[in-house]
């Protein structure tokens, strides 16, 4: 297999690796960089569990070649908050009970984060549209949407 050198800025740090032409970013993240916080739900772009933020835009890591991320910024759920210091959206998800099995959660949170960064006061329709690429088999979405709305309100009261 022909391998090509590449580097990505993963959650703020440049890392170098090799990838073959057909390897997806999801495969590289999970198998070579131990970034297993990025989940493999379907591997074909239908579920959004593998959502990462690539140069500021949320994308399916399974629909991006590793080599297409060369030289770019990749942000996973670990890049936006931690257990000790959660991102406000993560806090809202926990407080509002928007997590059951947790498999879809990272993808939803990252899609929501980019939405709120670009549009701090989204309507409910804006929210459901922003997460329309992320499937959840457990929650029925109600609490996910409420959690995102909650983080909007929290941010608003933080600004006032």
């Amino acid at each position, binding site marked *: *297999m*022909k391998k*090509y050198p590449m580097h990505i800025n993963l959650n703020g740090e440049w890392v170098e690796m090799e990838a*073959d*032409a*057909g390897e*997806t970013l999801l495969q590289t993240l999970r198998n070579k960089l131990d970034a297993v916080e990025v989940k493999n739900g379907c*591997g*074909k*772009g*239908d579920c*959004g569990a593998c*959502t990462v933020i*690539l140069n500021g*835009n*949320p*994308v*399916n890591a*399974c*629909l*991006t*070649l590793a*080599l*297409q991320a060369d030289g770019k910024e990749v942000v996973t759920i670990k890049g936006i908050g931690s257990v000790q210091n959660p991102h406000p959206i993560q806090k809202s998800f926990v407080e509002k009970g928007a997590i059951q099995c947790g498999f879809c959660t990272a993808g939803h949170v990252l*899609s929501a984060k980019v939405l709120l960064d670009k549009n701090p006061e989204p309507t409910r329709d804006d929210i459901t*549209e*922003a997460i*329309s*690429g*992320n499937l959840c088999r457990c929650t029925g979405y109600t609490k996910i949407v409420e959690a995102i709305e909650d983080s909007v309100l929290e941010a608003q009261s933080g600004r006032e």
Partner: protein
Amino acid sequence: MGNTEYIKPKNLNDLLNNKKETEGRGAVIAGGTNLIPQMQEKIKSPEFLIDVCDLQELSQIKEENGMISIGAGTTIADIASSDIINVKSPILASAARQLGNPLVRNRATIGGNLADASPAADTAPPLLALEAFLFLESEGGGQREVPLEQFFTGPNQTVMKANEVMTRICFSEPEHPLNGGYIKLGLRKAMAISVVSVAVMLDVEEGICRKARIALGSVAPKPVRAYGVEKNLEGKELNRDVIEASANKVTKDISPISDIRASAKYRQHTSSVLLKRAILEARDRGKK
């Protein structure tokens, strides 16, 4: 996939050379939203992948001398949010907003949507209604302009030659950009392959239809123009009876099949229903 070679051209010139040098064994990859799953499933195993996803030259949206020009590498997300597209061709912006989902739209490109040539390609019906044409270029200065209505030859089949690259999609700025309608019928609000999609552009003068351009997706082996309905509408007053009678004639312009998403009969029926709604939308949107 194991032996695939990866090439990343730095500019259009390099791209055209790469396409020539790989002699038909090289697949251009842009967003990869169709190609990557196919490669993972081993449905396609190109010897060479020629990556254009970062080629700025191919992703410009321009407005010059009454022509709108969209680089083939422009992402669907950028088309959906483009001021030029939203103002000058809102039906294309509407289709772009309904393609796939936001994650896919950040990678998928308009060139990829057309080159993949699914009969359900979301951007095809609006572009057909806008009478778009494509620039296909090859090494050595080769260039031809192909009207989109001649581009598709069947399901996932186009007139593109092995050494050609689609560089731009162009159309004349419509005189009445608001007099358009686009409706996508899918089984879900997102991530849906269309069951039927309809795009309409009209020129209306004092209630009379001067020009109608109508296209449908997912109802034939390729996206199609409804020439019969167009002729039926032109010259007539656009009242509800005329619109209904013309919309019902669409069954002669389409040849839907039954598949996993819908039956042929359902597609026949809903084509007329959606077409009537889209024509009404096109008629009424421009009104003050």
